[in-house]
């Protein structure tokens, strides 16, 4: 269990992270959401001990996270970087050694991961010869090679094509099933929705939403109704039950308070023409974020 208790980080007068309290249970995936400058990377750096928090406590399994445990921690920084002139294998072996692995084990793991990511022939290539996306795969390997118990991934999916995103997602899910606690940050709400049990949305250093995904959605108390029709549905804007109206191609998305309100909308649409779609669905994280922060983050 990774526990952050009232953690605050100030840079001079600037508050980068403001009284953040979260708990990340074992063998779970935890998502950090937030725009640029929300404090995600700073939080990760504090968890890793690269920065000291100004106030508060960070503990992992009742202890601190120090360099003596670095073999249990994996980290994929937001700013990707490897030695451009070194060969992939030499590089990975070096980084694995720094995480306390011996050369033989490291070699075995490198083979496994290169095969898995379908790039076994990169082993003897220099990193600078690889494409950005492939460098990122190598970097990901360097974060998981030593079978960490705690894996911190800062924006792991940015800059990858959809095929590689899927490949990485599969790998992450598998690691979680094998017992690794994974903390990751993302710009992309859908990745978090897909992968995480729990999450935290940060805004300007403060957590605005925090908890289990399902509970967050349930307690949000609002639903979306998706409507697609052959006629203009903009008159729904005037309905009292509609909290938020958004026009989409061939229809609209209306936000309502509770499921029963959908009935009002359904009746309003009666007799106006052909309705191709009428669906009540859970709110997306995006909706929650906009609601809590008052603005879109993208």
């Amino acid at each position: 269990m990774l526990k952050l208790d009232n953690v605050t980080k100030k840079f001079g007068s600037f508050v980068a992270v403001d009284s953040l309290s979260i708990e990340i249970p074992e063998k779970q995936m935890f998502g950090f959401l937030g725009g640029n400058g929300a404090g995600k990377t700073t939080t990760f750096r504090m968890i890793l001990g690269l920065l000291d928090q100004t106030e508060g406590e960070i503990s992992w399994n009742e202890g601190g996270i120090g360099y003596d445990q670095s073999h249990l921690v994996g980290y994929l920084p937001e700013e990707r970087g490897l030695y451009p002139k070194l060969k992939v294998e030499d590089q990975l072996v070096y980084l694995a050694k720094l995480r306390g692995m011996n050369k033989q084990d490291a070699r075995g793991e490198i083979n496994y991961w290169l095969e898995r990511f379908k790039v076994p022939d990169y082993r003897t290539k220099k990193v600078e010869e690889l494409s950005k996306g492939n460098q990122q795969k190598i970097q990901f390997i360097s974060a998981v090679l030593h079978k960490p118990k705690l894996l911190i991934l800062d924006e792991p999916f940015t800059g990858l094509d959809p095929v590689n995103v899927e490949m990485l997602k599969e790998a992450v899910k598998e690691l979680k099933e094998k017992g690794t606690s994974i903390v990751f940050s993302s710009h992309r709400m859908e990745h978090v929705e897909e992968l995480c049990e729990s999450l935290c949305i940060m805004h300007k250093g403060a957590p605005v939403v925090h908890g289990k995904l399902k509970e967050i959605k349930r307690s949000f108390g609002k639903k979306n109704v998706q409507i697609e029709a052959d006629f203009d549905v903009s008159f729904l804007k005037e309905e009292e039950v509609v909290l938020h109206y958004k026009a989409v191609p061939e229809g609209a998305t209306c936000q309502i308070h509770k499921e029963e309100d959908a009935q009002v909308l359904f009746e309003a649409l009666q007799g106006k023409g052909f309705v191709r779609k009428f669906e009540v669905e859970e709110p997306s994280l995006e909706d929650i974020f906009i609601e809590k922060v008052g603005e879109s983050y993208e």
Partner: protein
Amino acid sequence: MNKFFVILSHTYTNRIKSKAFIITTALMVAAILLMTNIQTVMEVFQGDEDEKSSVALIADEPEASALAASIPGGEIYEGEAEDAKKSVRDGKFDGLLVVEKGEAGLPAGHYYTDEFTSSTDQEVRQALQQVKMNAAARQQNISGEALAEISTPVEFETTALEEGAKSEEELNQARVIVYIMLFVMYLAVIMYGNIIATEVTTEKSSRVMEILISSVSPVTQMFGKITGVALVGLSQFGIFILSGIVGIRMSDSSENSLIQMAGLSNPDWGIITYAVIYFLLGYFLYATLAAVLGSLVSRVEDAQQTVTPMMMLVVVAFFFAISALSNPNAFYIAAASYIPFFTPFVMFTRIGVGEMPVWEVVLSFGVLVGAIILLGVIGARIYRGGVLMYSSSSLWKNTKEALQLSKKE
């Protein structure tokens, strides 16, 4: 501690294998072999020309034959001076010496040559001087023995009365050794300081640094790197020294003046021990500074710039040391020898050419070790913040920002 060695060996093997290292080492070895065999090399190039050097002489007897005997390549010229000059211009002779009777009937010379090569000029002048002296002696009825006695150099010896003081010969030897060592230190600090700063900045600019310092503490990382580069330096200088020894063996001449002068055939181990100690301490002091400076910039292009203050320190230290060579006990030299960044150069020079009480030497070690620890502690903090920082303002601003990053509030 284990990771310290991982970083150390990684730094070491990568450096040793790098093209830059192999090329500079090879070039230096070639230069050393050349320098130690400079006489042989020079002979190869000028061997033929030397024999050809010839001087035409136009003089009356008995001066003519005396000069012909004492000037190498001297040859009595039968004919007009104008023709002889022409032959000089044509390259048949290197020069022409015309001797006439000057004041008081003593011989006076006029030397014509195409080019002034001071050595022939000097030889001719000396030979003529001798001839003139003999002529003058004859005029004054001074016997040959008397003349020989007059021209013998005076016997002169110096003895230092202070116990343990170095004799003039020892002092000269020490000066040469100290000078060589100073130069080696100067070179090493500049070379390896630059390497360290560049390595740190490279790791920063390629952004691999964040992975490194999430695995290993920045302090371990910094000192692992510094020690790794130190070993590279020691290996490199080991190769240089070895090639120096090989070069001296190859030249196998006892008249090799440089080696004689430095007493390398019979080295003073005391001064070499001091040299090694000051070299290592000085290296660690400057290397720590270089690592810290390197951590403050994010682009490799800026690394050169950021080490400029360090380079200036080295240059100033070097000049203090050079002036200490001739004046080891001056007050400003004594003062400078306790300023940590100057100590390895200046104190070492003072020990080399002067007499230093033990307590001063020990004190200087203390100053150096203290400074290294202090710089290490402060440097580690700056380094820790600096490696996470990617802004590009002035050095001073960056330092403050780095310190703030590593602070709690």
